[in-house]
């Protein structure tokens, strides 16, 4: 019965949440600024000392930067959801005859739109800094697909602290380890130079396979098994985070 309204209610709540984004465009800018700063730092300061064979360093590290952009962007979802819970408007929505999961989906889809805009800005800056790719339409489509899946997975993770946090700082703190993950991966330096245990971690955590898959797509190389490992990671994180978030949400609205 409630499902008949799901699409319409979600669209209305998406519109509301997107207005929040457009009225504080700083959330998109700050999401884009940190990864751009890291990119500038690595390309012009550290990059010269990092041996990436014949690949230009900006080409090498852009995939990792894109993941950092998403990791920092999703913290705003936790922040906005936390504010809704705290202000009482969440309860008002729950007492309305609406599809109840629409409240969460509105926030999740807003995160997707806002992060895609941030990603476009970051890729634009990367082009200015010398990023080049011969990737065709299908390769770009594949990159976009991986990034969308990664954004959805991290956004559902972000929903969890948004629902349970006691303070706004607590709601957004979860994103710091996510932002750091790319540094312990193949995103900035080849994993071959890392000491044994770190290397083992780096090579088996999700970021490495996602970064390698995107890097191969941009470089028009065959993607090999990386893309399947990357997709498996994204879908697995997405499913687990979604289920945990839904259980917490149901408990919250009892």
């Amino acid at each position, binding site marked *: *019965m*409630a499902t008949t*309204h799901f699409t*319409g*209610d979600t669209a*209305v*709540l998406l519109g*509301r949440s997107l*207005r*929040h984004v457009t*009225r*504080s465009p700083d959330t998109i800018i700050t999401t884009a600024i940190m990864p751009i700063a890291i990119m500038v730092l690595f390309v012009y300061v550290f990059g010269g000392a990092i041996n990436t064979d014949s690949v230009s360093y900006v080409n090498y590290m852009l995939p990792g930067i894109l993941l950092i952009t998403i990791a920092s962007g999703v913290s705003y979802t936790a922040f906005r959801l936390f504010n809704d819970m705290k*202000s*009482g*408007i969440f*309860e*008002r*929505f*729950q*007492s*309305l*005859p*609406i599809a109840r999961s629409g409240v969460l989906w509105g926030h999740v889809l807003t995160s997707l739109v806002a992060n895609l805009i941030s990603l476009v800005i970051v890729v634009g800056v990367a082009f200015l800094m010398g990023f080049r790719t011969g990737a065709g339409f299908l390769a770009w489509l594949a990159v976009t697909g991986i990034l969308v899946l990664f954004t959805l997975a991290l956004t559902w993770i972000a929903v969890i602290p948004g629902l349970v946090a006691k303070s706004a700082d607590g709601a957004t703190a979860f994103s710091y380890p996510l932002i750091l993950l790319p540094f312990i991966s193949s995103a900035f330096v080849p994993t071959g130079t890392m000491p044994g245990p770190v290397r083992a971690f780096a090579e088996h955590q999700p970021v490495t396979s996602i970064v390698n898959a995107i890097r191969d797509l941009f470089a028009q190389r065959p993607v090999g098994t990386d893309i399947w490992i990357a997709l498996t990671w994204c879908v697995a994180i997405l499913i687990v985070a979604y289920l945990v978030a839904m259980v917490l949400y149901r408990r919250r*609205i*009892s």
Partner: protein
Amino acid sequence: MTARPTSEPAIQVQGLEKSYQKLHVLRGVDFDVARGSIFALLGSNGAGKTTVVKILATLLKADAGMASVDGFDVARQPADVRESISLTGQFAAVDEILSGRENLVLIAQLRHLKDPGRIADDLLERFGLTDAAARRVSTYSGGMRRRLDIAMSLIGNPPVIFLDEPTTGLDPQARIEVWNSVKKLAGQGTTVLLTTQYLDEAEQLADRIAILHKGRIIVNDTLAELKKLLPPAKVEYIEKQPTLEDVFLALVGEDSNGSAEN
């Protein structure tokens, strides 16, 4: 079920119990609210007033007992209950980033009504917010926020409205504005359940007053009957000093259109 469904109470509560961990907040609450009446649930902070409202608004599940709103059981028919009610929580639940009009349009859309824009404009007019319609709610005063909050509750004309401490934190003028809005609602046949910790608020508004104390309703009657519970009135001659509220309202001037009707 009563023999005459039309006179069936708008809200029925029987043996309601609720605990948070070891804290036994509600210990068997019973009351009925007649259709079209204003019912005040009076109690000190922590008495469990908000818990009762949240259970009736389907935001919380009771541990025991039954409650129905507009003929629908809150536990078994929550979707039908939500069609029949609206809730104004303790803190004005408005979207600060949106404008006043956008807030109203949002709720009208979520109630799946036709022509949300016209509904919003009507309510802005009724609540004296037309001039502030396009401004962000973060720039509103406390009284304006509360009025918007109540206006949002009226969208779709739900037959039952819950107002949880509607005037907490408001200045005297804003309180009177809210009281006038509530009286108008009841005049149109809406059933209002309001919680308050202010005795004068219950006295001003309510057809019936119940006092919730230590998880139970200890009295439930009309104001006239409640007054009989006390020792009979004595006649004393005293000089009536103006209260500070009288002075305040005389100096700043009462809301012209609001108080004239009462």
